[in-house]
């Protein structure tokens, strides 16, 4: 009983991060019908920026987080403006290649700047866990869950009630109509990238704090975040959140049954399964025809 509760707790904690990252994927896909492969690296860069500020420069971790959020917002914005915008009307193959290349670029950049050693954002020693409903959960983990939920709710409010949020939903629904009614498409797309990147940055900081950072942490997060988005129905914000938790749970319960070396492969496996069996996800996303019509 205690083991199950633990696995579920771990799954939920991990899932909340996956949800944060999945949101970035799903939002970008929603407006541009394009998979931003490099999104996972933004998550990684967020963690590293926070590290530079709080450990490298010795400032407060909160300051580090804020700088990371802003820094990633800028990175997301520039990424779109410089590498993706010129390709907006090219064939689908080209921006995809650019995205993969960007992902590799950021990884090597991090490798060169910071080296491959594992680092951590937390100065203090290992925390002790509290017992909640049969599972051992540390205060940091609770914070992760709390922050993630607050952000997701915030995003929901943003999308539903603010002008820019509504613009994003309009562009995701039908870009041509949106531009006809006067929505500034470029600005909306930039906003999507910025917000997605900021969420990813927070995810990176949280994980860097709770666990550790390394230059390839974005790679596995890419797949998990993207898989979560697909499970929920790519383009569907709420689906992405559910997908995130789903992946987190499946992963953590899964390694009870199979060797833990396969943990990252679980997400790949779910991804492949989804794409082949149910590409539109479980909550109906924006795939017009993921499979041939």
């Amino acid at each position, binding site marked *: 009983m205690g083991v199950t509760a633990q696995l579920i707790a771990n799954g939920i904690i991990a899932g909340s991060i996956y949800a944060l990252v999945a949101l970035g994927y799903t939002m970008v896909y929603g407006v541009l019908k394009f998979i931003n492969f490099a999104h996972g690296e933004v998550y990684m860069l967020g963690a590293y920026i926070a590290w530079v500020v709080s450990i490298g420069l010795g400032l407060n971790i909160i300051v580090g987080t804020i700088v990371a959020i802003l820094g990633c917002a800028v990175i997301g914005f520039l990424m779109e403006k410089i590498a993706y915008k010129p390709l907006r009307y090219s064939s689908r193959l080209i*921006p*995809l290649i650019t995205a993969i*290349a960007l992902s590799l670029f950021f990884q*090597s950049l991090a490798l*060169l700047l910071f080296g491959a050693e594992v680092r951590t954002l937390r100065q203090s020693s290992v925390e002790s866990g509290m017992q909640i409903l049969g599972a051992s959960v540390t205060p940091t983990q609770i914070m992760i869950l709390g922050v993630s939920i607050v952000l997701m709710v915030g995003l929901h409010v943003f999308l539903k009630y603010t002008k820019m949020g509504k613009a994003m939903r309009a562009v995701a629904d039908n870009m041509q109509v949106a531009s006809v009614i006067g929505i500034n498409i470029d600005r909306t797309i930039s906003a999507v990238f910025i917000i997605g990147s900021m969420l990813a940055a927070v995810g990176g900081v949280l994980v860097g704090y709770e666990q550790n950072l390394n230059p390839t942490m974005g790679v596995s997060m890419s797949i998990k975040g993207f898989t979560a988005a697909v499970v929920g129905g790519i383009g569907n914000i709420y689906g992405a959140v559910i997908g995130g938790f789903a992946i987190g749970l499946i992963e953590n319960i899964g390694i009870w049954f199979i060797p833990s*070396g396969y943990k990252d*492969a679980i997400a*790949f496996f779910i991804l492949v399964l989804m*794409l082949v069996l149910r590409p539109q996800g479980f909550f109906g996303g924006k795939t017009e025809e*993921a499979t041939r019509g």
Partner: protein
Amino acid sequence: MGYIEHLLIIICIYIILAVSLNLIMGFTGLLNLGHAAFFGIGAYTSALLTLAGVPFGIAFIASFVVAGMFGFLIGLPCLRLRGDYLAIATLGFGEIIRAVLKNWISLTRGPLGIPGIPKASFFITFDTSVKFLVFAAVIAVVTIGIVSRLVHSPFGRVLKSIREDEIAAQALGKNVMKYKMIALVIGAAFAGIAGSMYAHYITFIDPSSFTLVETILIVSMVVLGGLGSLLGSVIGVIILVLLPEPLRFVQLPSAIVAAIRQMLYAIILIVLMIVRPQGMVGEKRYKARVEE
């Protein structure tokens, strides 16, 4: 002199990889991000067979067949998917295969890799660089020859039509799924023999040589040279293999060199996509020989 031979051998191996990927990506329009997995499957197949006593010639052919089979198995679920989804699905399969190579320790020794792979031998043992280079060059030329034959034919024409407009191709009576599968299987099979060659040249393999980064590298070579141009693939390979070589002579730790290399390829790709996505060499245009 061993250095130059080494470079040429590596170039030959990558030519086979690039040409086979070009068949799939450049001519048929399928974004296959799992190509390095076929490379790895070929390498492991050949290594394990020869270590079990199978003669190299047979192991070599086996790596062709087994990699091709995996191409078929992966193609079955994936080829139905549209562009970006196909890319991610193949990427996913590639990573799953690598996870298996890394974790199925009883078969592959996992991350420790397989050392002591016997040298390639086919009537004579290719134990010197020069001998292996001749072997590699012959295989590379044969590969180019076969793929060229395929793409410059009515069969190749159908592949291109699938790339251009799958729906129109169907409307003209082409069994699109079948053609895509053939292209994928053949491309995978050739990547497999490149793997075999790699295994018997380096004599040591481990899963870290067959990562997504490796696939991206091959993609760069194809794209730089020009999708749909075999000559371009050769040029792309030569440029991208030689470009980072000067770094070897600068006194930097190898991890840094590797990172710079990767960054170089990434930047080249990004710039290429914006400035000249068709690559260096354009496609050869078909000229109808019309008797008037």
